[in-house]
């Protein structure tokens, strides 16, 4: 992979992040007076003024923007209104537990989704295919809160096998990870299936057969690397979402992650924490997209070597 390719993608990512920062800055000032929001509706005017001065809202807009960006660059995202701790710290302490759940769920969804998609593609039009796709549709259309509650009813209340809330042990992880994992497995299975079907009919698959490549190898070395390209795109978005946390699943299973923090911060109008969450989510999405772009280059030589000269 050449340096120019990586540098271009990286530059684009930085530019996107700057746009996001600018956007948040504008939104925060358009959506209402932050000082008013923080002080509450019935605060006396002099208290609001104190807040304005403390937040630097009495300065000119360009000056505010420069100070805002400079503060962001040093990792200062303001202080939580609730306990006066740095907003970034409040968010970051929740991150590991959310990522723990997210990556286990992602592993489950890949482990189920990719084989299921490949299998359905190979058995296209048969009962197996229809069964697999019914499962997939069920997986992503069944609301998380519904499946979550069903699991709690069965495994916690009825069978009494698994704890229904919290995150202390591995046993606590099973139900939220399964709920989140099966939901995404459906989407991944469908993406994999359609990508495989598209690839299986391509001419180079016939060439591989004409060359005497055995069936298994044709599937895994010839078809799958081509089919992986759209699946990786899909995966990139999933990766970005991981950081934002699974708001519903975390709430249902009382999982103390970023998703629940988001709910409580919004409810408490804790502006600095909400802002930190939004920035971090945007940052994660941009990083995920960058990772996808770089992964593309690795999988697909047509992207990696684009721009190099084409021989006549």
């Amino acid at each position, binding site marked *: 992979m050449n340096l120019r390719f990586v540098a271009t993608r990286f530059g684009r990512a930085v530019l996107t992040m700057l746009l996001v920062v600018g956007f948040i800055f504008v939104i925060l000032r358009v959506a209402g007076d932050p000082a008013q929001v923080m002080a509450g509706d019935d605060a006396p005017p002099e208290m609001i003024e104190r807040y304005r001065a403390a937040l630097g809202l009495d300065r000119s807009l360009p000056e505010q923007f420069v100070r805002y960006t400079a503060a962001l660059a040093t990792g200062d995202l303001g202080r939580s209104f609730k306990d006066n701790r740095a907003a970034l710290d409040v968010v970051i302490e929740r991150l590991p537990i959310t990522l723990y759940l997210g990556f286990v769920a992602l592993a489950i969804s890949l482990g189920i989704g990719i084989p299921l998609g490949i299998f359905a593609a190979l058995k296209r039009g048969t009962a197996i295919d229809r069964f697999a796709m019914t499962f997939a549709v069920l997986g992503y259309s069944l609301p998380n809160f519904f499946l979550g509650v069903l699991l709690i009813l069965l495994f916690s209340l009825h069978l009494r096998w698994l704890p229904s809330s919290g995150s202390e042990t591995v046993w606590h992880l099973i139900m939220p990870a399964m709920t989140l994992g099966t939901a995404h497995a459906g989407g991944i299975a469908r993406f994999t299936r359609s990508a495989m079907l598209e690839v299986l*009919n*391509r*001419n*180079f698959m*016939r*060439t*591989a*057969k*004409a*060359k*005497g*490549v*055995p*069936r298994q190898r044709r599937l895994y*070395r*010839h078809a799958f*690397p*081509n089919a992986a390209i759209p699946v990786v795109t899909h995966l990139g978005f999933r990766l970005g979402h991981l950081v934002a946390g699974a708001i519903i699943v975390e709430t249902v299973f009382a999982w103390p992650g970023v998703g629940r923090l988001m709910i409580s911060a919004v409810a408490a109008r804790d502006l600095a924490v909400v802002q930190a969450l939004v920035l971090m989510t945007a940052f994660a999405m941009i990083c995920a997209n960058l990772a996808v772009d770089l992964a593309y280059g690795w*999988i*697909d*030589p*047509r992207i990696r*070597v684009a721009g*190099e000269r*084409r*021989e*006549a």
Partner: protein
Amino acid sequence: MPPLLEVDELTVGFATEAGTLVAVDRVSFALDAGETLGLVGESGCGKSAICLAALGLLPPNGRILGGRVLLDGRDLVAMPEADLDKVRGGTAAMIFQDPLTSLNPVHSLGWQIGEALRLHRGLAGAAADAEAVRLLDRVGITDPKRRLREYPHQLSGGMNQRAMIAMALACKPRLLVADEPTTALDVIIQAQIIDLLVEIQREEGLALLLVTHDLGVVAEMADRVAVMYAGRMIETATSADLFGRHRHPYTSGLLASLPRVDQRVKRLAPIDGTVPWLGDLPSGCTFRPRCPRVLASCAEIVPVLAPEAASHRIACHNPVPA
């Protein structure tokens, strides 16, 4: 000595929404080592289906309904898939119409050629690379060492077809099936690829089954020619006989419709009518509705491919006088 390839009463059908269409109807021919047989006809006449069926490469809706394909005396139709994988790319190799889409876009040329070498000849690593370089050089690709690491999208159509030929030659096949190998290429590149195929066929003593709708290519390359119409073989002869003393009215029509550089022709002479749909073939001779020499009996009796001379056979009740 028996021929290298013997196709015997091969019948191929395709499952469609309108039922099973017979694309190849009891076609027989033989091909000796070192010989080139040109299989010609319009699009949809079944010439490609014969090749794909012979090597077990039909798409999922295609099926061999009858007949045998003997390669070296072994019937490929009855052969288990695992044994076929040893024959394909080994004794029998195939090249296709569109070289760019026929090569895998995510693997380098070296990887794709190396795979064939590993599967059939057990070569790997430096030995495989050296052999791949030799093969690329053999098919006239310049700077083969560098090309080894390049991908199909970096090369032109002609280069890719040369790479396909190199890949086909990788395991020293005795039969090469070429399905419209020049159709997707520019005219100048076509000529180069034809020259290359002719040269390789002579030097390696390959049996070449060449499918094309281009009679010019056939004239240049083939020892013998078989003409197909609507799934049936209607005339087969040596190249010289076919171009000089063709007997079937369809073959005459086909040749008359060719532009010529040595004569001033105001208008090309097309064959009247259109190719019949395979789901609704006329009774008797399928060329009957378009034939200028049609007789009453043509509607009733299917003409069989009967010997006219030692190596000249036609399927016609009222052939063009010799």
